[in-house]
């Protein structure tokens, strides 16, 4: 059964309150108040009140004035005025100011009140939906701004570097130097390429739909090993991976791989170059419809003051390696889609462990 709509009725005559509540309490959750402070307390304590009825003639204040007062502090509840007086002037004024949605004349009849509540509820829902959409739009705009920002750094940066290099190369005769430049140009282009791929991941995570299937983590880890065994050898980093899966896990493989890939790539990337015992350890455990993934490295660690920011778009805590600032943001977005969670623990110069939990669908 759907939860009852919360409504608030304010009237200084107690018998009216009792009558109102008795008539409507079967279908609605009715709060009543005989004075303004009580009404405000109800609004404060019950943010889900959707409709407010107020009598026009309250001691010391009119209903119109009361609505004017609350329309900025409690903008969401829909306001309906109850009046026994044919005070057309102030009524028109109040409606025109947008302070009230409707008015109901006293003595009211049940059908009229119920219809007012139902109409008000529709209005309330439409408004709330609009607010949610508005928030989403605002968020999308903010990210678009960040993109415009990053386009000049992450896309125009490598391009201008390579253009500059081509220009300079015309004046260089030493082949060795030209080769060194080619190497640096290649590095810049690879970075640009990685940026474009991450941007594509980003887009898919924001707009794509989930494709649920049963997931074999042993298979996924074999794929990861195929990618990272090479890096592990080249960089001299010991790489171990353990999978404990004795039950079916259902989820979307693509974002799960993206999470693992980003965490592993970071674990290898941010190793302490001077350390002798470099390692990356992955442990994946599926238990009670939940997968727990630990990715542990012996890297440079993350400074405590940066930990809170590493999941922000385009945030980079370190200049040792050139990242795009996309990776962990994409991890966070993927986890949001999968209903998962992530925790970080890090000790400077010792290493970082990421712990990820994702429920099976």
């Amino acid at each position, binding site marked *: 059964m759907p939860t009852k709509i919360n409504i608030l009725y304010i009237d200084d005559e107690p018998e009216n309150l009792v009558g109102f509540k008795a008539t409507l309490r079967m279908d609605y959750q009715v709060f009543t108040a005989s004075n303004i402070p009580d009404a405000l307390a109800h609004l404060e304590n019950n943010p889900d009140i959707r409709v407010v009825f107020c009598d026009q003639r309250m001691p010391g204040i009119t209903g119109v004035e009361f609505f004017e007062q609350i329309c900025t502090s409690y903008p969401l509840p829909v306001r309906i005025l109850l009046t026994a007086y044919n005070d057309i002037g102030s009524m028109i004024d109040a409606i025109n100011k947008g302070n009230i949605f409707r008015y109901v004349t006293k003595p009211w009849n049940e059908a009229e009140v119920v219809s007012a509540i139902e109409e008000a509820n529709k209005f309330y829902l439409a408004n709330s939906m609009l607010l949610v959409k508005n928030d989403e739009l605002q968020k999308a705009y903010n990210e678009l701004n960040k993109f415009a920002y990053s386009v000049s*750094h992450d896309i125009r940066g490598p391009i201008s570097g*390579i253009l500059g290099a081509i220009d300079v190369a015309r004046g260089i005769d030493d082949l060795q130097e030209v080769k060194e430049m080619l190497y640096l140009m290649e590095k810049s282009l690879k970075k640009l390429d990685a940026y474009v791929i991450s941007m594509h991941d980003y887009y898919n995570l924001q707009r794509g739909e989930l494709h649920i299937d049963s997931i074999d983590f042993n298979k996924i880890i074999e794929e990861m090993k195929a990618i990272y065994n090479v890096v592990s050898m080249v960089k001299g980093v010991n790489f171990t991976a353990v999978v404990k899966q004795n039950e079916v896990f259902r989820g979307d493989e693509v974002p799960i791989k993206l999470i693992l890939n980003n965490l592993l790539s970071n674990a290898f990337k941010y190793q302490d170059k001077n350390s002798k015992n470099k390692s990356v350890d992955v442990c994946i455990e599926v238990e009670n419809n939940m997968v727990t993934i630990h990715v542990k490295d012996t890297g440079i660690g993350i400074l405590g003051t940066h930990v809170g920011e590493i999941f922000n778009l385009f945030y980079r805590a370190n200049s040792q390696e050139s990242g795009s600032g996309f990776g962990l943001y994409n991890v966070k977005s993927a986890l949001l889609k999968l209903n998962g969670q992530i925790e970080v623990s890090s000790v400077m110069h010792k290493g970082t462990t990421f712990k990820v939990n994702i429920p099976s669908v």
Partner: protein
Amino acid sequence: MKLSYMLIDENDLDRFVVRKVIEQTDDRFGNIKTMNNARDALKDIETKSEETNDITLIFLDLYMPLINGFQFVQEFEKLPSFVREKYLIYALTASIDHNDHSRMMRFDSVRDIVEKPLTKSKLTGILQELDTVTK
């Protein structure tokens, strides 16, 4: 005028290009220091500025991790004047954002903004302008 140079840029290729442009353009430069982050550059300026009497031209990138170009200039402007007067700061950036440019030009110690990539003709322009100012 004989200049030394300091390049502050996290990108290897950009530092390489600027170094080459200097070598190909300025035939009397002192030395070229390269810094891959602005924090090290600040430290160098704070501790080593007394080692030389050369005027150092700084090419400063805007977007870098740790300390960005804006923060670098903020910190630089807190240094004593006998240190500051040995440096000429030029922002060198791939950014085409108007706000970035005006934000940077608000600093007294930023002489100009140069759009990446640095080329021989751009550097020649800077050097000629500096020559006329100092004569």
